[in-house]
């Protein structure tokens, strides 16, 4: 983990309000693992004050490129969206504990919204064929689905799910996944990232299913380094409750240890 100045190589609004950002920084490209994140300083003034965390969505160690996807939500992401090619960007990273695939095939990846970012990276790293990796990717409408194929030319079998049916299957991501299970899909292990309510439902259902499930969580962050205890999430381990830090012990947790 290091503090480094990355250079903006590409910034593209791939869908309205959704951006693809390619940074050049050899150290980050060489060391980042799926599930880890970068903590970005989006301005040099004091509003917004704090860094912003973004999952690494892919790397090209040969060219020193790190890829991110972000959604323009508030002040920080708005500033990011105004960056230009060649601009420097102050990054801390890679931070956090990555996904830990056990190699049980097939791996099923469940991505809700911008939760796609770390799972794209994971799919890339898992490699393998469409029989070994499944990616379920849900969003509200087709307009907010990122063009995943562009960034992941080969690899997982891809299922789009939209709430309004404007692309792929209609309904919730969890519904689509449940239907796939009913149709005979037998996951080796699950990896999920997305809105907390989605993850909570998944974890709830998984108490019956019992698949190995790793989830990536979000919390407001200050330091991103484990120093401030600001990003705490409540865990239950051996019947005892403790707080863990999303930026350090997380963002990836085992579903069973999270108090949902």
């Amino acid at each position: 983990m290091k503090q480094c100045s990355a250079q903006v190589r590409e910034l593209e609004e791939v869908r309205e309000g959704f951006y693809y950002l390619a940074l050049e920084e050899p150290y980050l490209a060489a060391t980042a693992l799926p599930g880890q994140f970068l903590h970005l300083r989006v301005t040099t003034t004091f509003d917004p004050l704090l860094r912003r965390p973004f999952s690494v969505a892919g790397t090209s160690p040969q060219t020193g490129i790190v890829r991110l996807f972000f959604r323009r939500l508030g002040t920080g992401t708005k500033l990011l969206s105004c960056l230009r090619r060649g601009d420097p960007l102050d990054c801390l990273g890679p931070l956090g504990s990555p996904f830990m695939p056990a190699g049980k095939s097939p791996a099923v990846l469940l991505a809700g919204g911008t939760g796609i970012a770390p799972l794209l990276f994971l799919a890339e790293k898992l490699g393998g064929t469409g029989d070994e990796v499944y990616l379920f990717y849900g969003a509200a409408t087709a307009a907010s689905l990122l063009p995943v194929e562009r960034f992941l030319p080969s690899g997982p079998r891809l299922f789009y799910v939209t709430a309004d049916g404007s692309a792929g299957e209609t309904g919730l991501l969890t519904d689509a996944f449940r239907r796939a299970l009913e149709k005979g899909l037998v996951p080796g292990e699950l990896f999920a990232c997305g809105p907390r309510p989605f993850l909570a439902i998944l974890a709830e259902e998984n108490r019956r299913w019992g698949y190995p499930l790793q989830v990536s969580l979000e919390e407001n962050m200050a330091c991103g380094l484990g120093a401030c205890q600001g990003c705490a999430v409540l865990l239950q381990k051996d019947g005892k409750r403790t707080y863990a830090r999303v930026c350090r012990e997380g963002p990836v947790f085992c579903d069973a240890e999270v108090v949902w």
Partner: protein
Amino acid sequence: MPSLKVKLGLLELESPLLTASGTFGFGEEYAPLMAMEGLGALITKTITLEPRLGNPSPRMVETPAGMLNAIGLQNPGLENFIKIELPRLHSWTVPLIVSIAGETEEEYVTLARALEGQSGIAALELNLSCPNVKKGGILFGMDAALLESLVGMVRAAWSGPLIAKLTPNVTAIEELARAAARGGAQIISAINTLRGMVIDITARRPLLGNLAGGLSGPAIRPVAVKMVYDIYAATSMPVIGVGGIMNTDDALQFVLAGAAAVAVGTANFVEPRTIPRIAAGLREYLAENGLHSLQELVGAAHNSGQRTEDS
């Protein structure tokens, strides 16, 4: 090269730049990022007698030029601190200041006595932003009599330098500083966070799990500078200035207002190299101005004739 050495009563430091309690963990998080260059002492996060789980999440939210936190003094407790954290902290080659808090006078005293027995602790800092459970939850730092008696009791249990860290949520902080002096503290640390709240307008409830929290960062700097100025004018104690220090200019404001040393908090989260940068900046400032030591500047802003009035 101009010297950054400072003397806070009996506490002598190579540099006036400290880490504010609770913002540097127990140090190990920043170790990979920071050369120790410029760090005068490390103030630990506050420890309590028993381990504390901390507050429910969310524990922090950003505010304009600031942040609001309600960590709830999450810490491993005295025993684990001594067994696990203290040996690790000694790998930092700078003086160590341990911050403590309790819910009763007795808890503070027990903590002080246990730490008195440990080697390698340069000073104790009393976090006074803690509710006194026996007095209906009023903070120790809000009542002069309570504060004086608490400091006196700790004084009897701890023989080294004693720092009283004041809360800004009071009518006249200089009165509390005087009370700390009467109780036997030798150094004042000011300020802790300002009480604040953010409402989640979607959920229509306070955003933090703990409802309210403490405001820190550049937003509060003018409030902290004024309080350091007032304490400097009212007492003869050395002051550690804390509150919104982001860069060399901010640190100089505190020194000119009367701080003999400064602690950096929230800035560590934004820019981990803040302390080494300020150290370099201060050296440059001294050299450019033909000064030999930062001490020459402490309180220099008091040399103007006018009175402070409320606006």
